[in-house]
């Protein structure tokens, strides 16, 4: 198990296009990957490879999120996804 906390900075939060980018990237790894909204008390980890689960979290901009993974490529997966979020998920 490997985890990392990052700040979601996209102006519009994690929806539509940014969410698709994120999920598409997560699917490239074998590990089980989860995303959790740290700023929402009681939020459970959601499957990062499921677009509907990620969207259902409705994560707004300026939110701390935890990315965790379990499996062979867990470290690479978390690092890559954290980078993607830091780079703004393809948004301006």
């Amino acid at each position, binding site marked *: 198990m490997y985890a990392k906390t990052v700040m979601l900075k996209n102006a519009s939060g994690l929806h539509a296009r940014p969410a698709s980018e994120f999920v598409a990237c997560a699917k490239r790894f074998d590990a089980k990957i989860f995303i959790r909204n740290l700023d929402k008390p009681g939020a459970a980890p959601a499957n990062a490879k*499921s677009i509907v689960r990620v969207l259902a979290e409705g994560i707004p901009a300026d939110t701390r999120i935890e990315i965790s993974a379990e499996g062979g490529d867990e470290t690479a997966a978390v690092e890559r996804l954290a980078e993607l979020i830091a780079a703004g998920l393809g948004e301006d």
Partner: protein
Amino acid sequence: MKIFKGEPVSPGVAEGRVCLYQAFTCDVYETYVQAGREEDALKRYERAVRAADGELLRLIDSFSAENADKAKIFEAHREILTDEEIDGEIRAAILGERQAADFAVNRVYTEFALLLSKVEDELIAARATDIRDVRNRLIRILHGEKEKNLSALSGPVVVVAHDLLPSDTATMDRKNVLGIVTEVGGATSHSAILARSFGIPAVLGVPDVTEAFTDGAYATVDAITGEVYLEPDEETRLRIGKKRDAFQKDRLDAARYLVDGGRLADGTHVDIGLNIGSGAEMDAIQYCDFVGLFRTEFLYMQTDRLPDEETQFSAYRDVLQKAGGKPVTIRTLDIGGDKTLPGLSLPKEENPFLGCRALRLCLRNRDLFLTQLRAILRASVFGELWVMFPMVGSLDDLRAAKDALSEAMRMLDQRGVPYDKTIKTGVMIEIPSAALMAADIAAECDFASVGTNDLCQYLNAADRMNPDVKAYYQSFSPAMFRMLKMIFDAFISAKKPVSVCGELAGNPAAAPVLAGLGLRKFSMNASSVAGLKRALRQIRLDDARELAERVCALDTERAVKSLLGGNPV
């Protein structure tokens, strides 16, 4: 032959075979398979997924070249179709609980759609529609039915439906849609906006057509007068055929003027504005100088909830970016009267047009108003944005509206969000009291736009929706032109821009008179632009001035119409 009557919302004439469109409704019952048959049910599900994916890929392929936005919708559908959580739950339901494939698909997809519809973010909640669309596609395939939607029509048809949903029109195979007839909707509905932006003749609000019309019946749609004929007789077909030819000939002739700038015969420059209800109508901005009226009601009508600041901001920004620096006039929410909102319950009024509508309603629902004003202000940094308040009747109204705008600015200041601090603020003049006070109003705002439809209704005390008082709704009356003169004079002498964005601005018969009264900014629907440019090119400024003077001196609407010649309305 049967004749039906409705509201013409996108002009033109169409005739052809009917495609009676009904959105697929999935009747799914709670069914289970026998023990030992789970694998068969799973195979049926897997085959359906492959078939659905094939359909989606073909749709993406057919749209990607001409319409990338449509292709993106289907890309999103493929993402949902292969979602591992949805897929996992369906497999578990089939294998673990022996649910039949269609029952499992229906249950799981519906649950996820519900989950998304509860998300606070509007844009995400709207994605529930996509989940339902994919669900319906799978169930239809499982039930062995062919795809019936408007995205892949076999040939040119007249579409007859109860209503068209945004998802239907977004994917519509528009080159094969000759005309649109629906039972519900009016000039400002979603279907109307799309029909106009695609140039498809449409008559909406025609009662009982889905019962009277059958697939393959022959229909003639006169979207100039609003008549729809079922199995028209020879004489009607001949008459409507001539009308269509004349309409098309006139369209073609006017189209030659489309790319020209707006000017009179002597070269006097005139700004041509575009009226829109959404970003989808911005194609025609290339032939126009500004957006004279961006109606924002459309945004509020899409879902059962009020659109949040973010949703509005991105819609306004989209229009500003498409305008490429040309001024965009956004009108704040104009509901009440004949227009209601699904997301806001309004008390029933005895006399809604004289009641709590538009600005009055916004001032009473301050949070609703402030949300919109913040979204507008935020979008103002993406181009040249002007904000306009509807239903201003006095200086009190204008001052209260400006006060709300200042409050919205302070809220953004606190959040450190940038906006155009010198944003132009204007009023829609549509109440006679505001016309009489035009000089005072001009002193306290930056511009005005005249809404001639409401102004005419209030000036003549005639409900424009009531056919019994049609004769009293006189948009060519001398009173109307005299009142317009007062408004133009006040703003011209205050050196503040004034435009007309009501229907009169797009009427070729009224154009010379308005130009003669001093108007230099005409704003209208895309379909009127070419015809209006042509009308303006026919007259010199000095002749227009003389004509306007004569019109204002006349005593009845009949006299004005006979002076202007032909049948001006």
